[in-house]
């Protein structure tokens, strides 16, 4: 078990190293000049050249990359070009808000998605099933900014149930979590539905019925635990999906998280911040997958961590 964990952590570190390399090269290839962004439109070519020199942007790519890596290993993610602050402290200030949003969104999508999936499977090919599947289809295909704005308009502006934006109380969490979780809820409901239907047709359900068990017990004790197995692996992958969603949702709701930080940094070619946010989300994805793989054997005794 510990050996397995150690090996997986080592693999994760390698993956993250690869990601720093790819991101760095991609940012290097971007035609925009960060020095020009810092100096402003009216600055002379000489000023821009000076700034480039100061930031070490004239060094060869690999020298720059090495410098970045060396810093990273010492816990230094660099300084923001524009905000006059350490990238690490910028991210740390905003990370809790984003993480909280992600956790509430995961809970939301699992509750909505799994419930819909179970109900639809038990009412297969009946009107309830059809309407739930239409709902999940809409949830999957509607863009998140449209859903976000729609929810804001109805529940915050018109009904006034929730605050329009910002961060602070639990009421602030509801609309962003639902917006962020709705897409996943759509996916999960479809997966759970087909997984449930598959298990319902398995021999073990026939045995459970032959035992004289009640339908409720058969569904909760025999069908659902077996049906949820393929979904666990999905949750790990899902965190990647959230990272893209979080940029949109945080903008719509004015949420002070790393999504907004990333958005500002991208607009202004603030390379250290972009790198930092990328690293944080990559770490989240890698750890999420690791977590899913560690949880799976706890639920399914057939899977052994080796």
């Amino acid at each position, binding site marked *: 078990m510990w*050996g*397995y964990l*150690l*090996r997986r952590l080592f693999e994760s570190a390698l993956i993250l190293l690869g990601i720093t390399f790819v991101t760095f090269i991609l940012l290097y290839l971007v035609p925009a000049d960060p020095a020009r962004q810092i100096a402003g439109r009216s600055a002379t070519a000489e000023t821009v050249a000076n700034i480039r020199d100061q930031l070490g942007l004239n060094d060869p790519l690999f020298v720059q990359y090495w410098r970045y890596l060396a810093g990273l290993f010492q816990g230094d993610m660099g300084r923001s070009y524009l905000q006059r602050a350490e990238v690490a402290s910028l991210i740390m200030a905003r990370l809790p808000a984003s993480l909280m949003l992600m956790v509430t969104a995961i809970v939301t999508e699992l509750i909505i998605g799994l419930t819909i999936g179970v109900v639809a499977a038990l009412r297969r090919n009946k009107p309830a099933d059809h309407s739930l599947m239409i709902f999940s289809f809409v949830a999957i295909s509607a863009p998140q900014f449209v859903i976000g704005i729609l929810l804001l308009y109805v529940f915050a502006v018109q009904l006034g149930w929730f605050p329009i934006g910002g961060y602070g109380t639990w009421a602030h969490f509801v609309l962003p979590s639902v917006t962020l979780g709705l897409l996943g809820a759509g996916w999960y409901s479809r997966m759970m539905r087909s997984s449930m239907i598959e298990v319902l047709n*398995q*021999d*073990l359900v*026939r*045995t*459970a*019925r*032959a*035992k*004289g*068990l*009640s*339908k409720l*017990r058969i569904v909760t*004790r*025999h069908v659902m*635990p*077996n049906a949820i197995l393929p979904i666990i692996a999905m949750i790990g992958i899902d965190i990647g999906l959230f990272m893209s969603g979080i940029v949109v949702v945080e903008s719509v709701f004015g949420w002070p998280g790393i999504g907004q930080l990333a958005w500002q940094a991208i607009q202004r070619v603030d390379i250290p911040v972009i790198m930092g946010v990328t690293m944080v989300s990559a770490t989240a994805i890698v750890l999420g997958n690791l977590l899913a793989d560690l949880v799976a054997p706890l*639920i*399914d*005794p*057939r899977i052994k961590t*080796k």
Partner: protein
Amino acid sequence: MTETRETGGGGTRPLLTVRDLSVQVATEAGAKTVLDRLSFDLTGGETLALAGESGSGKSMTALAIMGLLPKPMARVSGGAIKLGETDLTAMDERGYRKIRSARVAMIFQEPMTSLNPLMTVERQLIEVLLEHEVCRRSEAPKQALRLLKDVRLTEPERRLKQYPHELSGGMRQRVMIAIALACDPEILIADEPTTALDVTVQAEILDLIRTLQAEHGTAVLMITHDMGVVAEMADRVIVLRHGRQEEAAPVRELFAAPQTDYARTLLAAVPRLGSAPARPQAEARKKIVEVDDLSVRFDITGGILNRTIARVHAVENVSFHIRERETLALVGESGCGKSTIGKALLGLVPWDGSIRVDGVQTRGRSRAMMHPVLRDIQMVFQDPGASMDARMTVGEQVIEPMRVHGLARGSELQDRAEWLFKRVGLSPDMLSRYPHEFSGGQRQRVCIARALSLSPKVIVADESVSALDVSVQAQVLDLLQELQEEDGLSYLFISHDMAVIDRVADRVMVMRLGQVMEEGPRDAVLRDPQHPYTKRLLAAVPVPDPTRSRPAMPDAAGIEEASPIFPVGQSPQRIALHDLRQGHRVARVAATTP
């Protein structure tokens, strides 16, 4: 339809009365009757067998009694099922729950898929005990343990905490039986309970059912396709076909003098050990396949660096040959390595040693280099449905190998495919159909046609008739024999079924844990077995003769429990064969060598 006259039970009132039971299944073409006015009685302590081939409605009868017909496709469309005085057909779901397991219990064919993989054996047992309030929650674990002891499971304390995947097939079926008998039901329905098990395990499970039946006085409704099982288990038999009763009789009468044509055909088609005619000797013919010191090992990896920590020694130093126009049968229980040998011959698994096909050494050949060899050696698999591409016409699938090997082109391909179809007894106009439009037997004919398309010299038949009904099985075996006589084909016939092997083999090789236990001419190995393992295998085969008194199973002396998995660097002890006479060779028995 004749009314069944019941004879069993010595005048006691029947536990279960089935009268004019009909079951309909909804199909696209409308309702189809899969069970048509079946009537029978079941009295305490007796065993009634429902025998028939696939589609005969035997399983539908069982599910109808349990109220487990797949809804909404199937429903009871007429008749009555009376358990004592209660009519089950009128029962609602709530009432039925009190009957299932408590009064009528059922065990199924596949013990692996029938158990919940995520629950320990203990939880699955306790669940049924508590549901029917057999005992209090605090006593349930003790009761579960007692049940496992009842079904003679070894190390019952440890088994309780295990999950189904940690048990062998036979143990799983014992757990299923323990669950079924937890509430001491009046009736046990056993739906093909041993079909998925090895023959020695089958003998043990059948024995267990008989013992428990005697202990508890349970009535057993045995559903099976295997006339051997019928003969060994049943007091009375109902032969079903296409949902109709063909014949109902006490078991001895049925086997001695079947009254209907169908029962006669069915019994005639059953392969019987020792009844096959002698086969001509093939001594002087050319050796087509020569295998020397074949070993196949599969790595098991683990640890931090994913290194190989152990190996499955699937096949260990096996040598044999097959002559022209000869059938060599490989027999053994699941996991003995017999299928792996077949795969190694076609280069489908990595192997060590030497394999020569028609004089050509295949060792070290790449996939491309195997091409010319594969023209000489082809394979026919167990499940013809799964080994065909469902989205390709059968014609395309027969033509494909000829195109890949450049044997023909254009209209010649079509001509050859038509000719092949005629040879295997199919109509050439079926070429444009898809696999799902064929029956199991027809599909296996298509697979044979595909294997024949390259005009091979050897065909590896891996359990090729195991999934087929006996009457169809007999036809396919006849076809294989015909092809052998006409084309001089050689077969490596891999099977677990001793009776089938008796029918087709010239020589027999018995395998266990990757090594050969005994080999020799069919008559020597099957009629005069020397190795205790072979003796046990043969004794376990159910004999379709109810008058024969069941011989005691030879005990497992000299056959030690073992696994083919060894740590890296270790190998199983190489078992030497010694010659008896005329090619009959047998492994030294551990017990006789001090």
